[in-house]
Structures are given as structure tokens and as C-alpha cells.
């Protein structure tokens, strides 16, 4: 817990404007904002009084590019939520400009806040009582139980493969360096001094590529892929139309109406959503339909979010069971449709697979419960007070990747310019530390295992 450094995060209270606020806290927060904030009259955060606001633009100081039009609210320690110097940046655009603002801060030495960190700081600065603080511990606890690691599987297959491979290569380099330092007279087969630079080079290129193809960028540029699935006839197309507010997809009472997926772009309070209606999931003999079902499975893998639709009218079936078993919990929402017909569907099977998720009850036909569906989608993407949405956790992934890349670069450049192994190792360890925030590996616990499993050591 480093109390000195300055942290930033998206403040995401539920409700309107959730996307608009970035909080910055820490002794240097005013100066940090000064670097990127331009007010027409030359006002600076570090010179403003507590609880005053100023209008202006966030400008990239390197390129002069305008990221967004904003209002900043300045607070002085101890009169702020955390008890530290704080700035709230109220941005007016959607996620893309917000992202740009976060990047400007984080690239200049501000750290992305850990979960619950604002509240924790508030407690230690005496701004909060015990009951409130314990609630925060509960949140941190919930996160710890899921594993501190960010769910790698949540990322696309190739992305997580890239990260695993890079981390594996770095472990190899590190094990080699550490072994040759601690066992200078042993023979280390299968790896040579020359390999070090080559490996670092490769990892650097891989990480660069990984960052380029990063899904978060795609999600925000092209829309968050949201796929609607469910048995035939449960009302998927009707749900799409309802969220869209237009009759786009064909709706009939004949099961298997939708054969090819239909894609529509909608704007959910500033979040671009790519809504995809699919062919109903089922084992089938019909060749044409089979094609559609196969395609659906592929689609699911590439989806950021899945809406799994059940039919309250026909009850919970074995096919529903099968569907829930195949989709990952962290990117799925369960929607029970047609509650106008019958509300007594047995949800035991749902609870088994999705013990923690909220179940959404709607009538797509009558438009009931749709507001809650929109809200739930939003929370999944941006996050709520208790949980991080995938957008934020992807932001963490990306940050970790960027930091890892920086360390690998430093290691490679140092190695090339002739710094000694003991120094190069510092940066290699740094890179592994950052990747470890994604993969869950810790260096000090795992290094001896790596050395002894790779090399025949000991005399």
C-alpha cells in the first residue's frame, strides 16, 4: 500500500453520467492534471481553491491533440473523499475520449488505482468509519477469492496465448540468468548467453503486437460484441428488436426462424454495442441450420458479452442446461423471457452454473424489464461499485502489458549496451511482475522451481 503515489480511476457510480468522471488522488494530483489541462484563462489545478471548478480541454502535451472538453473539480487535503489532494475530471464524451484521458495520466506516472484503493486511502486518512471500511474489505475479499489474477480466459484465445508465451520466454531467460549467477560453475544446457538477447527481442516484438491487437481498443472502436443466444423460439430476435427500438430481425412463432446471425449497432449511453442475434442453439440434422449453429459457437468465443435467453413459457430444458454449461460465467447475462406468460420457471439449473449472477426477468414482447437489461449490460462493461466491468479489467490488462513492455525494452537495451546480468535481471523481473498480474505467477515463489526444473544443477 503505497500512500504517496498518485492514483487515478474511472469513477463509476451507477446512473447517468457514469462514463464521465475520472478521479485523481494523491499529493501530486493537482500538478499531474496541470500537465494535460488547458483553461482559456490559464487557470491551473494547482492554483485553484478547494471545491472550485474550471472549464477547459484535455490536451496531449506531446502532440497538442485535443482529447475532450471537460470540467475539473479541485479538492485540497484533507477536505476530499480520500483526505488527499484530489481532482475530478468530468468529461463530456463517451468511452473513447475517457480512455484517451486515462492514457495521458497513466503514461505520465499516475498509477491505475487498485480495486477499493480510494476507499482504503479514505479510511487510513480518517475519512471513514470502521463499518464503511469493513464493507470495503468485503469487496477486496470477494476479489481475492476469485483469485487476484484477472481472468485470462476472459481474453480472446490468441491474446491469452500471446501473453502466456511471452511470460514463458521471460521465465526461461530469468531462470537462465539466475542459475548462472547462483551456480556459476554449473553447465546450463539448452540455453546460452546469446539466447538472452534474442529472447528479449522476440518478447518485445510479441508484446508490441499483442498491444496492437488489444481487444479493448477494438471493443471501443467497433463496438462491444454482444451476442444473444438461446433455444429456438425463446424470443432472441424479439429482444434484439426491443433493445434496438426497431423491427430489424424477423420474428415468427416458428422455431428456427433466424438462420444467419443478424448484427446491429446500438448506442447505450455512449457505449457502442454491437448486438448480434443468432440461430437457436440445438443439435440438429438440418444441414443449413447446422451451419448456423456452428457459426454461433465461433461467435461466442469472440464475444465480449453473451445474453443467454431462457423461455419462461416453456420452462427450463436439457438444452438450456447444456447451453449454460458451455458459456463462461464472467461474460454472460442470463435473461428469462416471456414472463408475461408464466413466471414459475424452475431456476435451480441456472443457479448451479451461475451462482453469483443476477438473473434478469423480461417480457421482450411487452417491453418489461428492458431498462434493467440495459443497466446490467452497462455494469458488465464499465463496472459497478463492487465489481470491475470487463472494460476496466481490460484496462488493467493493457496497463500491465504496457509496463511489461517497458521493462522488456529496458532489459534489452541495457543488455545490448553491456550492463551486467545483475542489472538486466532487475528489468526482466519487472516485466514478469507485470505479466504476473495477468497470469497470476509470482516471481519470488516460483524462481527456484523454474531453475531446478530446467537445469541440472549442483555439484
Amino acid at each position: 500500500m503505497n500512500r504517496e503515489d498518485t492514483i487515478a480511476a474511472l469513477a463509476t457510480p451507477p446512473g447517468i453520467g457514469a462514463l464521465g468522471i475520472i478521479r485523481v488522488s494523491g499529493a501530486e494530483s493537482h500538478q499531474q492534471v496541470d500537465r494535460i489541462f488547458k483553461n482559456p484563462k490559464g487557470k491551473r489545478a494547482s492554483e485553484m481553491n478547494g471545491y472550485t471548478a474550471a472549464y477547459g480541454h484535455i490536451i496531449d502535451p506531446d502532440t497538442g491533440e485535443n482529447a475532450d472538453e471537460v470540467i475539473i473539480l479541485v479538492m485540497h487535503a484533507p477536505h476530499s473523499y480520500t483526505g488527499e489532494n484530489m481532482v475530478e475530471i468530468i468529461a463530456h464524451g463517451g468511452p473513447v475520449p475517457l480512455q484517451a484521458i486515462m492514457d495521458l495520466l497513466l503514461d505520465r506516472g499516475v498509477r491505475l488505482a487498485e480495486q477499493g484503493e480510494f476507499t482504503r486511502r479514505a479510511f487510513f486518512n480518517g475519512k471513514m468509519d470502521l463499518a464503511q471500511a469493513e464493507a470495503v474489505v468485503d469487496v477486496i475479499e470477494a476479489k481475492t477469492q476469485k483469485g487476484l489474477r484477472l481472468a485470462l480466459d476472459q481474453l480472446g484465445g490468441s491474446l491469452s496465448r500471446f501473453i502466456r508465451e511471452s511470460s514463458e520466454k521471460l521465465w526461461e531467460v530469468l531462470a537462465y540468468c539466475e542459475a548462472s549467477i547462483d551456480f556459476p560453475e554449473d553447465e546450463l544446457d539448452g540455453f546460452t548467453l546469446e539466447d538472452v538477447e534474442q529472447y528479449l527481442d522476440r518478447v518485445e516484438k510479441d508484446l508490441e503486437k499483442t498491444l496492437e491487437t488489444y481487444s479493448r481498443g477494438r471493443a471501443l472502436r467497433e463496438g462491444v460484441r454482444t451476442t444473444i443466444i438461446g433455444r429456438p423460439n425463446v424470443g432472441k430476435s424479439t429482444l434484439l428488436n426491443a433493445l434496438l427500438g426497431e423491427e430489424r430481425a424477423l420474428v415468427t412463432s416458428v422455431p428456427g426462424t433466424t438462420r444467419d446471425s443478424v448484427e446491429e449497432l446500438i448506442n447505450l449511453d455512449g457505449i457502442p454495442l454491437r448486438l448480434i442475434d443468432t440461430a437457436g442453439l440445438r443439435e440438429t440434422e438440418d444441414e443449413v441450420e447446422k451451419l448456423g449453429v456452428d457459426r454461433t459457437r465461433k461467435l461466442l468465443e469472440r464475444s465480449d458479452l453473451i445474453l443467454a435467453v431462457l423461455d419462461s413459457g416453456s420452462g427450463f430444458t436439457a438444452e438450456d442446461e447444456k447451453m449454460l454449461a458451455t458459456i463462461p460465467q464472467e461474460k454472460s447475462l442470463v435473461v428469462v423471457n416471456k414472463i408475461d406468460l408464466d413466471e414459475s420457471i424452475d431456476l435451480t439449473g441456472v443457479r448451479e452454473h451461475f451462482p453469483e449472477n443476477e438473473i434478469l426477468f423480461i417480457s421482450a414482447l411487452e417491453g418489461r424489464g428492458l431498462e434493467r437489461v440495459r443497466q446490467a449490460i452497462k455494469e458488465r462493461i464499465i463496472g459497478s461499485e463492487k465489481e470491475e466491468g470487463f472494460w476496466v479489467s481490460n484496462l488493467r490488462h493493457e496497463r500491465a502489458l504496457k509496463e511489461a513492455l517497458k521493462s522488456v525494452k529496458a532489459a534489452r537495451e541495457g543488455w545490448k549496451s553491456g550492463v551486467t546480468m545483475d542489472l538486466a535481471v532487475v528489468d526482466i523481473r519487472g516485466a514478469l511482475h507485470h505479466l504476473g498480474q495477468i497470469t497470476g505467477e509470482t516471481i519470488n515463489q516460483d524462481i527456484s522451481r523454474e531453475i531446478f526444473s530446467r537445469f541440472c544443477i549442483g555439484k
Partner: protein
Amino acid sequence: MFEYPQTYQIIVIGAGHAGCEAALAASRLGFKTLVLTIDLDHIAFMPCNPSVGGPAKGHIVREIDALGGEMGRNIDSTMIQVRMLNTRKGPAVQALRAQADKKKYHLRMKEVLEKQKNLDLKQGLVTRILAEEGRVKGVETATGIRYRGEKVILTTGTFLRGRIIIGEATFDAGPNQQLPAKELSRSLQELGFSLKRFKTGTPPRVLGRTIDYDKTEPQPGHAGSLFFSFLHEGREGISGQLSCHLTHTNPRTHSIINENIERAPLFSGVIEGTGPRYCPSIEDKVVSFPRKKSHQVFIEPEGLTTDEMYLSGLPTSLPEDVQFSFLRTIKGMERVDMVRPGYAIEYDVIDTRQLNLDLETRLIQGLYTAGQVNGTSGYEEAGGQGLIAGINAALTLQGRKPLILDRAQAYIGVLIDDLVTKGTEEPYRMLTSRAEYRLLLRQDNADQRLSHIGREIGLLGDYQWELFRQKQEEIEKILEILGKTKIRPTPEVNEILQEKTSGGLNKPVSLKEIFRRPEITWSDLVDLEPGLPSCTQGIQTQVETMVKYEGYIERQQREIEHFKKLEKKMLPEKIDYDRVPNLRTEAREKLKDIRPISVGQAGRINGVSPADITSLLIYLERKKKNG
């Protein structure tokens, strides 16, 4: 039972590398000290490799020396070869390693103990530790003597229920077939200690004159002023160094081992103890790495007055006849004469999670444990712990706070913290990769890190302290000169630099700036500025490291500040973990068990999560507010 007429303040059981340091520290700090050992002819004995130092281990020896211990001085006066390892891998990991004359090493240490004021040295096999109401009272020996003492330091190495294994043959024995301590284990168990069984091993010894050295590669020592002790810095290096020799096993060696593998105690189930991964037996290496066609064998002399050679790389517990056969397949050993077979030894160790960071046991007040009995391996690791145990027994008798070195101060700190906080599942060897702040825990600056502590405790003598102070002054002076001396971009200067494949200058820069370049050495600086004051190798290295590493060192220093914050958040001795809300059950049990002294230490316990630490912090904060 005969009641010995004299009451001691501190009793040390065992006179190995831990025991000697413990006893010397205790008596030098003015306490009436007794050392009991099974055999007076094996004081500071080296039953395994005849060498001291190497990465991390050499660092520990320097630390022992800076605190006022004996190991560095003892090896300096008895070494027959010395090398500086890792010279190209960076100053942080450079390490000295010396071959010892085993006999001389023992004899010199024995003499130092015998001459030490306040110290009695006696032969005796301790069978029982006496304790009343959780407080240690003394010890009893097998021959019926009861010694009373206020503090007892247990440093019994691998003697507790020691069992030697050579093929099908097993003996109840300590290392080198000495008498084992059979009954002491039971006494410890009766006091409530939980013990574990570890295993280690040693290679065969052979006669030097039966080796064909022409077929091996000589491994000579290094010239120069290379010493462990800061007392000896700048002295002329030792002369007449002996050489080690390198040879290799080959497929024939391996096939003999493979053919007899079912007779190997390691695989037949005879050996139960857990062995170290970093020092596997040759049969283990052959089985685990079948694709490796040859393994290194270093032939190391055991001393000047013996022709016995230690075969580093070949620890084994195969039957003696198999050892004999596979040795003769090795290049240069075709007609070798084996004089002692290698063996494995199993022994009891204390689960160190029962200790506090000052090495006192939590169960019995006044009882300390140190060295291999704590599950470590290596003479250096033992010496470091022995020194700390001896110091702390003495400090508590003086009513002073115990000495606890932290992970940012010393390898000894890392070692003890690991043992006490995490425990160990195999014989623990110090590795530089275990230290988070390796760039700061260097061998060259062990004196800077620890001399003032040794001085304050009262172990570091006036002479060594004065040497240290002078050296510090000199370092500061030279750093200042380097910073102030500007070198102008003259053709001569640029010629010197270009010769070093270093870029020329286009404006005046300080010598310090030039010294930052990796390719520039101290002697280049002298070429550029002949007026530089001359100084010892030790000072040159330290200045060079401070200049070249500055950025990295500052980075680690910042990390350390962060680390220290949680280390300084002390946990009350009487904290009741049942009353700390929100702790998970596993964390609660572990905390009750290990009783960390600080929040920092608590965080390193396996099974205590960051969330548990937050709960702890919140609890402490509330206690503070409510008074």
C-alpha cells in the same frame, strides 16, 4: 547425576560452524559461556566440501565479519586457494570462494575458542535439555553431568538421530561416522517441538597421487588481494595456491549407475528424508536428466597435509562397490584409489516456524536453535545463524532488544525471515535470487551495511571499526573528487576514450560522468587524470559500483522505503487474532501459529492474503484510535 559446580550464563550445544560463532559472540560480549561438543577433534569441521563462500554464501561470510564474527578471519588464515566468481556478471553478485585446508581450519578455530576469555570448551554428548515452566535451565550429558545455564543454544547440525547410508549398509552415526545424538531428539519432542527428517549427502574421497591430472583441466586460483575479512583488505594475496581440477562423467559412468539403480537407497525406499534439489546425488542426476551425457566433477584438495581429494559433483549413497566401479570410468581416474566412500545422511531438524526472528524458540524461553538443525545447509548459513543466536542470547541477558536483521539489510536477514516465516521443505541453501534487494546486499558493502551494528552491539573491535571509518571517509572523498574534476574534450582525452571504444567528448564533463560508462575502468580514470589519489581495490570497486549503479540503486532504495513501512508496523505481542474481524480461517490459524512481529512479516506468510493484511491494518488502526 553430578551437578557441575559452575553455573553458566550461556550453554552452546555443538561446536560446528554455528556453535563456534554463537559461543564466541556470547563470551566476547562478556558472558560466562560453555560449549559442549561430542568430539573436540571435530570443532568447526567440514564434513562435506572443503570450501567456504560462493554466491550468497560468500556474502554471508562478509556479513558475519562486519558484525564481528570469526568465520571470515578463520578462512582467510587457512585457505589454500581463492577465486572471485561472477566477475563479469556484475558487482552485486560477485562472490569470493576459497578452498580451505580442512585440518588447519579446524585447528585454528579450536585455538581461538580455547584462548577466548569467558569461554569453556568441553567434550560431552548432551542427552537432555532441562526446562521448568517453559524456561530453559540447563543440559545433561550421557556421562552423567548436569550443567546449569540461563540460556541454551542448540547447534547440533546433522547429529540428531543421524543415520548414514551407503548402499545396503546403514549406521547410526553423525557425519564422518562420529557418534550421533540419539536421545536429544526425544528430549526436544518431550518439550513439545515438532521435528522433520532431512537428508543430505557427500561424495567419495580419493587419493590425489592416483589421479592422472594430465587428463583433467586445471582450475587455478586467482591472484590479488582476495580476502573475506575486512580486517585483511588490501593485504598481499596468499601465495602458493593449490589448483583444483575439472573432469567429467561419461556414458559408461552413467550405465554403471543405471545398471545398479535398484541398489540405490535413494530409489529403493531406504532413504526417507527430503534432500536438497541444488545438490542432487549423481544417481539422481543420471536418472532425472537422462539426456545429459556427462556431468562435471571438480577435484578439490582437502588440505596441505593430506592427499585426500574431494570429488565435487559426485555425492552418492550407492553401494561402495558401485562407487568404486563408476569412479574408474571417469577420465583421469582410471586407476584411482577411493579412500572413503560417499554416503547419505539422514537427520532430524526443527520445524523453524516454531522460532521467533531472534532464533529463540517460542515453546521454551531461553532456548535458541541455529544452523543445520534448523534445516539449512552449508557452513556459511550455519555461521550466520549461530552468530545471531549468540548475540541475541547475550543481548537479552543484558536486558537489551534482540538483533533482528531485515530483508533489506542482510542475507542473514533474508535467511532467518524465510526460515521463521515460511519454513522450509528441503535443506535450505542461500541463493542470491532469494533476496529482493540484491543490488544493495553486495559483498563489497557488507561493512557499510553492518559495521555500525556490530560496533553498537560491542562485537566489532576498535581496530576493525577504525579501518571501516577510514575507508568510508576515503570513499566519500573520492566520490567528491570524481564529481568535481572536469575533463575537457582535448584530443589526448578523446584518444584515450576512443581506445576504450568509448565515445569522445565534445564538452567538459566530470570524471564521475565518464565513470558511468560500462566500458570505463578505474585505471582509465587514472589515465585521464593522473592526479587521482591512489586507493585500495576494495575502495575502487565500491566507488565504481556506487557510480555505475546509481540509477538502479536509487530505484531499489525507493522500493525499500516502501517495504520498510509495513515492516515498521509492529504487531502487539499479545494480539488476539480471534478478535480481528474479517480474517479468513486459514490466515487466522497461520498468524496464531507463526506470530509475526510486523505487518510486513505477516504478509509473507503463505496463506495470508492482501485482504487479510487490510483487515489487520484496520484492526490496528481502530485499536490505536480507541487507545
